[in-house]
């Protein structure tokens, strides 16, 4: 479903990712862990189409050359990024925004607009599941939301937009225990054989609630090692370990 090959990313001449390879199949949940500054958020931003990066390599997603697509076309193709720091959009109501978004994606895929009744019904039931107050549907997008409310709002959008690839960038950071449980349950509900997840996190806590199929360690600009769900716990106990010195190898 997603195949990243030899992805190198730099910003202002500063290399962040250096030849990253990663493949995710349908229905799989992959977690990416790694020390601060390893480029985890850069990877998610590049996949979603944020500008300002020098990008080399290839990313294939569901038959698309993902890197050639505008951000809105990536969303229409089924990519969703849950932002680490969701942006506040003053003056634009949450429900209005979501319906605009959903209809834009449907239009891009040749589907008719969603009718208001089923949209509102679906919105309400997802909000109930995420234990969000109904007032959040009319409030401006993320404006004045607490950190936890913003993260729940990201999961709400994911639930409404039903992407085929969901990238969660540190969605668990800044959440208290209850909010983490609610958010994790929201992710679990969306797991399906057709949908893949790329979960970026610092903490194994989330990965106990959302069990990954594969855990990757991103360090030194590429995937340093990969393993099963148990790798997250090992990292928690032993840390990432000394960083290997590539120059030293073979000398």
């Amino acid at each position, binding site marked *: 479903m997603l195949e990243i090959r030899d992805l190198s990313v730099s910003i202002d001449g500063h290399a962040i990712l250096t030849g990253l390879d990663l493949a995710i199949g349908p229905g799989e949940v992959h977690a990416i862990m790694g020390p601060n500054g390893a480029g985890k958020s850069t990877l998610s931003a590049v996949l*979603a*189409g*944020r*500008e300002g990066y020098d990008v080399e390599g290839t990313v294939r997603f569901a038959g698309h050359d993902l890197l050639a697509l*505008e*951000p*809105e076309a*990536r*969303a*229409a193709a089924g990519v*969703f*990024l849950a*932002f680490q720091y*969701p*942006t*506040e*959009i*003053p*003056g*634009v109501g949450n429900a209005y*925004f979501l319906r*605009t*978004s*959903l209809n*834009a*994606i449907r239009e*891009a895929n040749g589907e008719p607009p969603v009718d208001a009744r089923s949209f509102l019904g679906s919105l309400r039931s997802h909000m109930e599941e995420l234990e969000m107050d109904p007032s959040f549907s009319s409030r*401006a997008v993320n404006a004045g939301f607490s950190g936890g409310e913003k993260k729940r709002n990201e999961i709400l*959008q994911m639930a409404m*937009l039903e992407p085929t690839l969901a990238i969660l960038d540190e969605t668990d950071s800044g959440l208290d225990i209850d909010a983490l449980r609610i958010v994790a349950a929201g992710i679990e509900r969306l797991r399906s054989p057709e949908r893949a997840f790329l979960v970026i996190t610092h903490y194994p806590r989330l990965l106990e609630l959302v069990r990954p199929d594969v855990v990757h360690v991103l360090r030194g600009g590429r995937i340093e090692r990969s393993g099963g769900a148990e790798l997250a716990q090992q990292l928690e106990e032993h840390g990432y370990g000394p960083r290997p010195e590539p120059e030293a190898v073979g000398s």
Partner: protein
Amino acid sequence: MNPTAVAPSAPVEASWRREVRADAVGWLADHQPPTTREELWRYSDVDALLEAMAANPADDKADVDAPTVARLAGDGPADRLVLVNGRLIADLASRAGGTEAVGVLSLRPSDDRCPTDSYRDLRHDDWFLATNRAASHDLAVIEAPAGSALGAAHVVHVTAPSGHRPVTHHPTTLIRVEAGATVTVVESHVGLDGAAAANASTTIEVDAGATLAYHRVEQGAAGSAHVGHVSVALGPDACLHATSFTLGAATTRVTWDVICAGDGSSVELDGLVVAGSDDHHDHLVTVDHRGSDTTSEQRFREIVGARARAAFTGRVLVRPGTTGTSAHQRNASLLLSPTAEADARPWLEIEADDVRCSHGATVGQLDDEAVFYLRSRGIPEPHARQLLIEGFAGEVLEAVDVTWLRQHLREGLEQRRPAIEAAR
């Protein structure tokens, strides 16, 4: 223009109108129009305004029908009064507000009573205002009797050029809200296509304990000029919730002159200015705190695109001997092109000690992060920008509690989008 050349609109005028006219004509004989060397006119395109006003006086031959009025000014439940080129068009009036008690009337020149004393007691210091006094025709009048709780009144001033001939006229509205009354007034300044200038004046008096919601909308035709002057006097514990929209015309100068005369009076003024193409809009707001325990909030926003300019000057005067004044002012400008310009100028003259005062001004562009956020949700870039512009304006539109007007303003903003987004 030569104001002495303007003939009175009817053979018999009320004596007070004759006095006002004569007074204004006399003042104009001794004074020159302002120039940008004067501080209060520094950001105005005075020459363009004067050029536009030098056109012929508008005549009364304009052909305007009800659907046109509804299209230009919006339509909804309100007692409506329509004036074209300063003349009341009785056929276009309607009472859909269902509030017979609203004293909507138009004083023909022969009426003998002035509903707002401050219209007569003009301190002549403004050339455009004096010109309005000298040359106006019918006066639109809204009167809410003491203690009444009424619906909405809608005054529509239409500027109608005849053929390709540029015209100028002097729309005038008087609003009197008597003690304890509550009323909503919408005042629309709209125009048919063509070169034209409107030099408008609105005089408002809100008596003790009364509340007025007043929405002023300028939506003149592209290429037209608009000068507006709103003078407000608030009595004790009187309350004004006002909005000011400038969505049309190429050159405008809108002046709000609010006097919190009575103790405990308060004003909230929310403004939105949309400038595109080569528009040049200048807004000057003065809140004069003369009573004690008075409060004012000024919140203005400008959306400026293409090669347009928008300026905002917010004055707050706090008089000596007053106590408990609270005066706050915020201005935010959204620049949509590198050639757009916004100027914001807070101007505080505080002559009392017991004052809570604040002001702030921001000038910014559309947030790239917000554009990316919306695009990452599948919303194409032009639509994302539109949403953000709507959102910026939406915070002002929320201050309008008249549903049909809010919808009309949204549509008006949408119609201006090509002009503000061009050549960014």
